[in-house]
């Protein structure tokens, strides 16, 4: 019962957050100075033509009416037309979203797998020379700007060594029957490697440091001491008990990190000409393509909110104490 209630109140919360995001986006693009259609309207248009256009986009109506039309459209998945591409925003975004998700998840999975193992190892080897050398190194990777890291990797592995292509998701002219065929092709991996590596290096610090500090805390817990008094092997103590418990908050941070990463993607997608949502967002904003920018923002917000929900569910799944009490 309390389970259901918790889920319901959580869903309601998310709906409220989503509504707030949607409203802020609406106001942001409506209240910006200048004519929102400036980019769309050809200077040769007559005043009548301009007004006809304003009417077509509903921009001649009062703000509150526009707001409800906008909400109504959103509910039907209608995001409007891109000014630049003259095609539905929803289509454009759905075409780019998979690229962004593949990049985000592959880089984060690498970052978390590495960070969790290395963090646990460093906690276990606390005070050793390895740990003392590793911590400043990790802090350095955290401090490196993404675009700089991306450029360095590009310079070394693409321009100099020529191991990987410099950008995009496929060679010119390559055709694939489906996204699935593209993503599972060996060629795609060579395109994915550098941007994913850049993001992974940039992101591994958080799980690594989090895992390490959690491990250090958990190692002080009575149940870890008890595991030693039981004579269990070092591996059992460190992995099954200490690491398993230290993992809980790290796994939750994964879901949250997906949201952050979507913002981080903006830079990396631009450096590597990765046709994703982040790069599109930047382009749309600089080209004053408001419907597209709005749609991209909305999609990113949606993923962030969903990942928060996933974080919650992960916790319930991994920690038996949650939801039972």
């Amino acid at each position: 019962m309390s389970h259901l209630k918790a889920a319901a109140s959580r869903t309601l919360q998310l709906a409220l957050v989503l509504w707030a995001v949607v409203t802020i986006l609406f106001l942001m693009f409506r209240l910006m100075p200048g004519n929102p259609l400036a980019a769309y309207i050809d200077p040769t248009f007559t005043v009548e033509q301009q007004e006809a256009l304003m009417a077509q986009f509903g921009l001649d109506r009062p703000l509150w009416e526009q707001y409800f039309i906008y909400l109504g459209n959103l509910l039907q998945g209608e995001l409007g037309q891109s000014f630049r591409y003259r095609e539905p925003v929803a289509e454009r975004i759905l075409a780019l979203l998979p690229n962004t998700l593949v990049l985000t998840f592959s880089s984060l999975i690498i970052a978390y797998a590495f960070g969790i193992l290395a963090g646990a190892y460093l906690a276990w080897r606390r005070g050793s020379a390895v740990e003392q050398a590793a911590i400043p190194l990790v802090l350095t990777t955290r401090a490196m700007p993404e675009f700089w890291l991306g450029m360095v990797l590009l310079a070394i592995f693409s321009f100099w060594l020529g191991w990987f292509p410099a950008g995009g998701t496929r060679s010119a002219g390559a055709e694939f029957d489906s996204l699935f065929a593209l993503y599972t092709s060996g060629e795609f991996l060579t395109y994915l490697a550098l941007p994913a590596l850049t993001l992974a290096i940039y992101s591994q610090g958080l799980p690594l440091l989090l895992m390490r500090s959690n491990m250090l805390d958990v190692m002080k817990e009575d149940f870890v001491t008890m595991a030693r008094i039981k004579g269990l092997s070092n591996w059992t103590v460190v992995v099954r008990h200490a690491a398993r418990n230290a993992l809980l908050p790290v796994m939750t941070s994964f879901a949250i990190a997906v949201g952050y990463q979507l913002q981080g993607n903006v830079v990396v997608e631009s450096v590597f000409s990765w046709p994703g949502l982040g790069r599109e967002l930047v382009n749309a904003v600089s080209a004053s393509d408001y419907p597209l920018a709005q749609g991209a923002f909305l999609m990113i917000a949606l993923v962030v909110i969903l990942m928060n929900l996933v974080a919650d569910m992960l916790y319930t799944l991994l920690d038996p104490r949650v939801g039972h009490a």
Partner: protein
Amino acid sequence: MTETFLSVRDLKVSYRVGRGSLDAVDGVSFDVPRGSIVGLVGESGCGKTTVARALTRVMADNAFISGGRMLFDGRDLAALSERDMNALRWREIAFIPQSAMNSLDPVYTVEYQLNEVLRLRGGLGRAQARKRCEELFEMVGIEVGRLRDYPHQFSGGMRQRVAIALALALNPKLVIADEPVTALDVIVQRQILDQLRDLQRQLGISVILVTHDISVVAYICDRTVVMYAGHVAEQGTMEATLTQPSHPYSMGLRNAFPDLQGAASGVLTPIEGAPPSLADPPPGCRFAPRCPFSIEVCASVTPPQVEVEPGHFAACHRAGEAPALRERARHVSTWMAEA
């Protein structure tokens, strides 16, 4: 007397602190006869847990055994290799902690944690382990159906029973219980102690029961070891040490606790003052600053262990006058005058 099977001699355990070290246990000797319950009692900080953990050789990172022997069935635990020591852990020496809540892993079921020792330490197969889990739960009086529950789903008393079941899993010879009932209310305390005593008799194991509560000793122990500031002040049979305490500290301790049976034994009189710093212990008798009976020699000469009766020792210069001191110690005013 029955055969001694654990014999601690001049045990010294130190903690590294800063540049120096502190001797939390400084020359402790006591015996545990086979099949008996020995109570290790004393104020907070006197070194009880340090002794208990030294026996498992799983100690704080900054702790080390700096002297003495712990003869367990003829082997010196202090001298065993880590490998040989680990072979004894849980199979022969098990541990019941104060807070079963914190000492059970929150993310695994109780069954998982029982299975872990049964299979990894006891070498049992899946089916045997399953049977043993049920047997253990029946032994400590918990429904078998609750094996699949997580630690947080049990009440405090139940968790302590789970901890007992865990300790008994591999039929150990020695169970060390560190304040096993301290966190519980008196009624539950009594139930758990009854259970511990029944199982101990039934299985013929030996128990070291660490407690700061003299009434717990009175309720369940066969022998008492009274510790004060890293030393043993007095030891002997439970009856002798409690009815004829021969060390002024034990006399005071007896006045300071209510009876677990509920019978009010007069006014509770705490011992004024605090134990000395272990980093810089005073010369002579460590109890001297708080002792209402201290004499000149007490402040400079460490008192020897005096055998007041066969098997009953008190580390006090005035142990010979114990009956007279006991009489005086009954009066509240004796303890108030000090401090």
